[in-house]
């Protein structure tokens, strides 16, 4: 299955009640698949008039306690930022998939990782966080979906699955199965009609003095809990490495190939792959920097995650960067060359 269809089916298995979306390349297989499968399951599919409307439809369904999602690509995700800010203020769960393409502006339709800042810094206005998952294979994309819904419900947050055009379009064999999810708190805040109880109000406006500060601090406590409990990260041969390459998503797959070849050449190289981009694996990277080694960050952008790596390394080691923006995809050879140069190996 291609990544886009696989993530859609995985969302259905994860109990997604409603999908709302607007066409945009390179994620069009998601709404097309959902338009067929959701009605078969007796669930809701609506093609919205815009990404603005799509995220607000998610807001509406989520406010009634349903599991709702949308998907889009970079320019469309920009339009959704208003809604994500409101979802965050109202503490509503939501799952948003961004199959990234090149930007800024209309950019192009080639794969990219240029929305890292937008995804991990909140993107919309106000003091909030979204959980960001960065899968690097179609199987991992599939596995991200039930996790995203569970995290969204557990913390009442927006969870963004940050994929890219390659992952969305790429075909790989996948295992799709229903797994036991997390124990989740009851949605006693949901709007269901005030039958036999006091009215429920879902809101993000807090005018009285100190009221919004109180909400912001409540959100902060929640975000701290997420940072403590939900970091996911994978690493390979870091212990003896002179150079550690940090990359996520599709870029991490290419890095894996380059690091293996470097090892074959006798270069002590390893890699770290953040799976949650927020919360970021700051602790893991910081620990790796306790012994002197070079860090190389590889991204399909002109350098965004590299800032988080620098914040984690806190000057203990040099952090260098190699990136290809605008739809460029770094090759194994390009990354291997960087590794050789940084470890002072002559070109072969």
């Amino acid at each position: 299955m291609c990544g886009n269809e696989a993530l859609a089916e995985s969302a259905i298995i994860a109990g997604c009640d409603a999908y709302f979306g607007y066409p945009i390349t390179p994620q069009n297989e998601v709404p097309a698949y959902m338009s067929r499968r959701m009605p078969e399951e007796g669930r809701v599919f609506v093609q919205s008039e815009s990404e603005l409307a799509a995220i607000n439809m998610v807001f509406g369904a989520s406010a009634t306690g349903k599991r709702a999602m949308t998907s889009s690509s970079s320019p469309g995700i920009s339009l959704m930022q208003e809604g994500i800010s409101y979802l965050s203020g109202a503490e509503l769960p939501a799952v948003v998939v961004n199959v990234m393409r090149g930007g800024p502006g209309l950019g192009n339709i080639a794969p990219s990782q240029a929305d890292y800042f937008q995804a991990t810094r909140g993107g919309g206005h106000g003091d909030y966080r979204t959980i960001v998952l960065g899968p690097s294979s179609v199987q991992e994309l599939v596995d991200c979906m039930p996790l995203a819904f569970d995290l969204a419900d557990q913390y009442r947050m927006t969870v963004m699955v940050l994929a890219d055009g390659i992952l969305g379009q790429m075909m790989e064999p996948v295992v799709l199965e229903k797994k036991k999810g997390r124990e989740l708190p009851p949605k006693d805040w949901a709007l269901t009609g005030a039958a036999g109880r006091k009215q429920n109000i879902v809101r993000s406006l807090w005018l009285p003095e100190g009221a919004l500060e109180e909400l912001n601090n409540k959100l902060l406590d929640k975000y701290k809990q997420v940072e403590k409990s939900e970091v996911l990260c994978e690493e390979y041969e870091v212990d003896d490495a002179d150079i550690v390459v940090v990359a996520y998503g599709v870029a991490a797959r290419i890095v894996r190939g380059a690091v293996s070849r470097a090892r074959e050449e006798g270069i002590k190289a390893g890699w770290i792959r953040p799976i949650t981009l927020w919360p970021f694996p700051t602790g893991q990277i910081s620990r790796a920097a306790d012994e002197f080694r070079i860090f190389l960050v590889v991204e399909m952008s002109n350098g965004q995650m590299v800032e988080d790596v620098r914040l984690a390394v806190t000057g203990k080691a040099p952090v260098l960067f190699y990136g290809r923006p605008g739809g460029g995809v770094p090759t194994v050879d390009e990354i291997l060359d960087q590794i050789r140069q940084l470890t002072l190996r002559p070109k072969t």
Partner: protein
Amino acid sequence: MMKTVFKRTPTLKDCPTHYCPGCGHGIAHRLIAEIIDELDIRDRTIGIAPVGCAVLAYDYLDVDMVEVAHGRPPAVATGMKRTNPDKIIFSYQGDGDLASIGAAEILHAGHRGEQITVVFINNAVYGMTGGQMAPTTMLDQVTATTPKGRSAAEQGYPLQVSELLATLPGTIYIERCALSSVAQIRKTKKAIKHAFDLQLEGADGMSMVEVLSPCPTYWRMSPTKAMEWLENNMTKVFPLGRLKG
């Protein structure tokens, strides 16, 4: 022997109002509360408050309510109704919310024939932000952003949203009412009740009642004068009556 001839309806909360003297929102809130109680649907109704003066509508209406981004109530209502067809979903929106920033959302909710009830309060200004021009501001009307009065050449004509929406096959009932007199208020209640009734029956499409409502503060008039101005001037540009259904 004392006899109660007028009392608060249960769905209207017993609390002080934040609305200005002579504002129409209080009347419109009360009408909705009365209708919810008369139809006995409090336990299955979800309301949507707009951005604008009525953003705090949930402080007055004792039903499950949500407050959403400016202009987006019809999209939020779509998400709610599609996933909860047994619930009664209504949005309460002002002219800035519905006719300006949310023009796309109301048009497409109507276009898709969403089975929701929309109460559209048209008072020809942005009240909450200080009386700026709305799409429905009358020609020559002085507002905070039309100091010389609205001119057709500069700012366009007042937007007649109800007429526009009535052309869509997806809308089943559109009526324009006014809160300018006791008789008109009674007609308004009848219209809003009909819009709720249609949703209760599962009628196939969107219902909207436009309510011309006074804003004495930003019309710079006394409450009584505002009622007269509404009846004598606004209804000429926004004629009352049933446009569809």
